[in-house]
């Protein structure tokens, strides 16, 4: 579904790219983990395939259409859903309104459907009481589950997550990874997770390591 063709990126110095000539393919119904040393460029790579930045070299294609053609805003609205380490929820809203807002912006099929949003939250352990509270009054694990619920509510086929378990304890981490597997296998989406925890990576269907400016698939 998502393809990178000769993808390369550098910040200041063209002679010292973070990665270069990357040809990768990601499919729906699968989960991918990206590992690598700190500073190797994992987040940078993710920001490219999430449509938050433009490649310096090469191209990214969604179903054989270049992101340039689709337009980054359009791509972000309809084709990709992002989960951040810092949750990135609207702090002045309840979990329910966070979901409703995201669904409205992304023109999701269930946009405006409160009952559906409540159900999704409930399935992730956010009960009716928590769903109406301000998100700032939720724990880190709960907030991350709200962020995952947001992803589930939206129709984007591509889900990218940058260290989604970075702030969570063991139990919460397990729970969150399970949910990502669900998104890949049950919702039939393509999930790409950047992580530095081997345990998390092991649970994904595929693992890549960013090393020496190249992505190496691990067995």
């Amino acid at each position, binding site marked *: 579904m998502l393809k990178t063709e000769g993808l390369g990126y550098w910040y200041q110095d063209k002679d010292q790219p973070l990665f270069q000539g990357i040809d990768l393919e990601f499919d729906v119904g699968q989960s991918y983990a990206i590992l690598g040393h700190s500073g190797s460029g994992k*987040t940078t790579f993710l*920001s490219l395939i*999430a449509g*938050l*930045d433009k490649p310096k070299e090469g191209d990214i294609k969604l179903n054989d259409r270049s992101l340039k053609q689709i337009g980054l*805003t*359009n*791509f*972000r*609205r*309809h084709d990709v859903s*992002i989960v*951040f380490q*810092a949750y*990135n*929820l*609207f*702090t*002045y*809203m309840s979990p329910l*309104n966070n979901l409703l*807002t*995201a669904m*409205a*912006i*992304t023109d999701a099929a269930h946009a405006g459907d409160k009952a559906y949003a409540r159900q999704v939250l409930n399935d992730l352990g956010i009960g009716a009481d928590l769903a109406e509270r*301000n998100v700032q009054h939720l724990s880190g694990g709960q907030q991350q589950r709200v962020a995952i619920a947001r992803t589930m509510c939206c129709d984007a086929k591509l889900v990218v997550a*940058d260290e989604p378990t970075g702030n969570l304890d063991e139990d919460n981490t397990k729970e969150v990874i399970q949910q990502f597997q669900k998104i890949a296998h049950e919702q039939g989406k393509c999930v790409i997770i950047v992580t530095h925890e081997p345990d998390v990576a092991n649970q994904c269907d595929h693992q890549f390591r960013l090393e020496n400016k190249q992505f190496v698939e691990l067995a």
Partner: protein
Amino acid sequence: MNFFKRAWLNVWAKKGRSVLLILVSSAILMFVLAGLLIQSAAVKATSQAKADVGATVTLSANRQAAFKKMQSRTTSSKSSKMTLTPVKLSDAAKVAQLSNISGYNVTSSTSVNASSYDTVSMSTGMGSSTGGGPGGMKSSTSTGDTQIDGVTATSLTTAFSNKQSKITKGRGITAADKNTNNVVIEKDLASQNNLTVGDTLTVKEATGDKDKVKLKVVGIYKASSTSSSAASPMSTDPANTMYTSYTLANTFKGSKYAGTADSVTFNVSNPAKVSSVKTAGKKLINTSKYSLSTDDASYQTVKASMDNVEGFANKIVWLVAIAGTIILALIVILMIRERRFEIGVLLSLGEARWKVIAQFFTEMLMVIVVAVAIAGVGGKFVGNQLGSQLVSQSATTTQTTSSSTGQPGGGEPSGNGGSGMRGGNGGPGNTSQTTKQATDTKLEVTVSAVNLAELGGFGLAITFLSIMIASGGILRLEPKKVLIS
């Protein structure tokens, strides 16, 4: 309209911040409203002043031409008498037909001698400085001790319309008193001679066959001391001035004065049209015999005073609007910086940048709506305070300017002989009179629906501009930089 809901959620969730924003906006809008109120009050007051003060055009003998004629005659022949042609009422009637003239007053003055009563003698020692007497226009043959001011109606004279003189008993002279011997006398003269409304008194003509004439008192008036000391002939006490119909005054002067007047004063309904009335009037009269002079000094003084206030209010409105826009823009810029993360999340979800701006605009709009309501209540108070302050201030300014410039033909105190040229024209005491009027003009400050609509417009414009200025931050914001650190 998802951004609308977000705006509401944000304003509601951050109540403290919203209240602060409302307070700041109210303060700004209150000043805008104060300016708007003074502005509209000044406009109203100016049009009111037009109606109240009015302006006049006076038809009288052409003194300058007569004076020149006299001079040329002095050099060539022996006669040195300056002859003034009295105004023919038939000529005046022609001028009265012009548009914008709402009415006219005929003035014919002379003097007679007391017969059945005693005149009031001057208490002050001013009697010695008789000088040139009451300007040439008052009858050339005036030698009597009682001044007769013949008019169409007392209410049309400056002394009465300015409230310097007031009817205290009975009634004033009206157009219906034409061809009667009715008279209105001064209070002091009345009490000294035990005269009251309905009594008769006898005067003796000062010219011709010196007939005795019986007059019937129909009213008693009180002359204010300030006006009389300045406006009446120096030789007699103001209490010795009687008002009659101009026809009676003409009778005292002699038969050849029938159907004439010293001057005819036309009231101009729209003071702004004074000069065009004068131009049109000049075409109807023989300008070598008559002259038309205008007096809109009172109107001009009030107008200048109000223009001052209006100009000042205009400046306030714009200064405050500009300052308010800058202040609000800075606040919005700070707010946008503080909310970069939230904007980043919106952009990462694929929200259009213009909708993010629209959300901020909606939030500010909600704040402004409340602020307009608050300012509407508070602005009246501020406007009242400012309004009274401003009028008293500008009245003093105009007073200084008008007295230093001096009104043409008006300001000179009568007196020394040479001033016969211009002394009588328009009457002295003009300056004091007009400033009194200006101070009397109150700025009535009321908040009308129009004011509130204007205020709303300003609020909208200020909000729109400040969001536009601040939106650069949103347009340049890169979600990657904000979200990934």
